[in-house]
């Protein structure tokens, strides 16, 4: 019969949102970049830099939080017998959606998690990003109402389910073997890993704290199915408030903790790792939101599902990491100075590709 999962209750999801709301600002307090306690898109971008897929010297660091998210979810899934290796639901399409999700999120400068944390830190530009996110997810729900589906996934071998978790474990080993070095003056290489000495990539909480927070959040999010995109989607599609309650708890608690830690600075100008281009904050997140919706999860949820053995989600994660490399190699990513040289083109192409994927995968009833 039904084993009771307390984290799947309303109280459970609110508690998980609240815990993330405490941990994320604390990670900033312990060294992570401002309004970036946790940002799945930014941190995967930093990982892409750390392994040399791009050479933007200010955003190279192997973020332990991301590794922790996958491995924490893996541990939870194994303990509660929810580790189910699966895959085969349009992996190539999910790879492309991952690329677009990342290039679009980097136009806004953050994933939905960071959009919430930016708002909780007083960054008004995040309102535009969140509005864009909601608009993109809404477009996604229109496709779902018309029968959009990437098809069924099927059971896979244990080894296939473990691929992404093992990659993350391998990266953790590299981080332990090749730690950051003291006294460096420019971006440098320690062993095989690249490190920033300035910019957001040089701002990080100590390894133990970052990894513990990542593992804890990965564990709890696997149990509760916490998903930022799903929160908006379920509200639009079903008028369900369940996941939204978790998201609002995260926002409310992070706001309080930020005020308590003196990390709350309301305004639009001069916000950390942000720009004030209203249209592009909105448009970037609109395209990202559509990509998340079509792929079935926000960047965080894709990591947690990868930990459960879902290799389709794993392919999306790899797509995001490749997307980050393209974003920085090709001038698609924004910076506090404004839009990247080719950012506008990336947004337009991303939108067209998402719409194409949406229309091409409508199933007739």
């Amino acid at each position, binding site marked *: 019969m039904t084993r009771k999962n307390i984290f799947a209750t309303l109280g459970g999801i609110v508690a998980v949102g609240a815990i993330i709301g405490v941990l994320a600002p604390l990670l900033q307090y312990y060294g992570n970049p401002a309004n970036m306690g946790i940002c799945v898109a930014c941190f995967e971008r930093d990982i892409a830099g750390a392994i040399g897929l791009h050479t933007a010297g200010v955003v190279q660091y192997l973020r332990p939080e991301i590794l922790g998210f996958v491995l924490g979810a893996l541990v939870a899934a194994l303990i509660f017998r929810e580790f*189910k290796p699966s895959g085969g*639901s349009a992996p190539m399409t999910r790879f492309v959606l991952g690329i677009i999700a990342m290039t679009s999120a980097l136009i806004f400068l953050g994933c939905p998690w960071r959009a919430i944390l930016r708002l909780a830190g007083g960054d008004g530009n995040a309102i535009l990003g969140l509005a864009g996110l909601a608009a993109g997810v809404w477009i996604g729900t229109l496709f779902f109402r018309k029968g959009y589906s990437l098809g069924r996934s099927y059971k896979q071998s244990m080894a296939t389910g473990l691929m992404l978790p093992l990659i993350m474990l391998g990266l953790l080993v590299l981080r332990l073997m090749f730690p950051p070095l003291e006294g460096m003056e420019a971006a440098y290489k320690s062993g095989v890993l690249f490190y920033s000495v300035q910019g957001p990539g040089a701002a990080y909480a100590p390894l133990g704290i970052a990894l513990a927070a990542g593992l804890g959040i990965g564990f709890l999010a696997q149990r509760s199915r916490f998903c930022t995109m799903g929160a908006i989607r379920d509200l639009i599609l079903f008028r369900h408030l369940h996941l939204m309650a978790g998201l609002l708890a995260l926002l409310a608690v992070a706001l309080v903790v930020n005020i308590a830690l003196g990390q709350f600075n309301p305004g639009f100008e001069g916000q950390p790792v942000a720009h004030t281009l209203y249209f592009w904050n909105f448009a970037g997140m609109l395209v990202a939101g559509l990509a998340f919706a079509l792929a079935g999860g926000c960047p965080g949820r894709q990591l947690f599902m990868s930990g*459960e053995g879902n290799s389709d989600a794993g392919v999306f994660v790899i797509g995001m990491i490749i997307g980050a490399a393209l974003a920085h190699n090709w001038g698609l990513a924004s910076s506090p100075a404004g839009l990247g040289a080719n950012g506008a083109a990336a947004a337009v192409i991303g939108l067209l590709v998402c719409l194409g994927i949406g229309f091409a995968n409508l199933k007739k009833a």
Partner: protein
Amino acid sequence: MAHKVDARGLACPQPVLLTMEAIKSTSQSEIEVLVDNEASRENVSRAAQSQGWSVTQSDEVGEDFRILIKK
């Protein structure tokens, strides 16, 4: 015979979407939903209850889950 919904292998939000469609369209008072993961089982059960249906059975069948909901 219960109305059947096979949502195995389908990602969010499709199991819930298919269940909601079945609730709206079926003339029968019972629906059987098959899903292949715990999260979908929770979501489908929660969605059915939000529509005033009750979950009468929720079993593990091999690798999958079989949820019976009743008006």
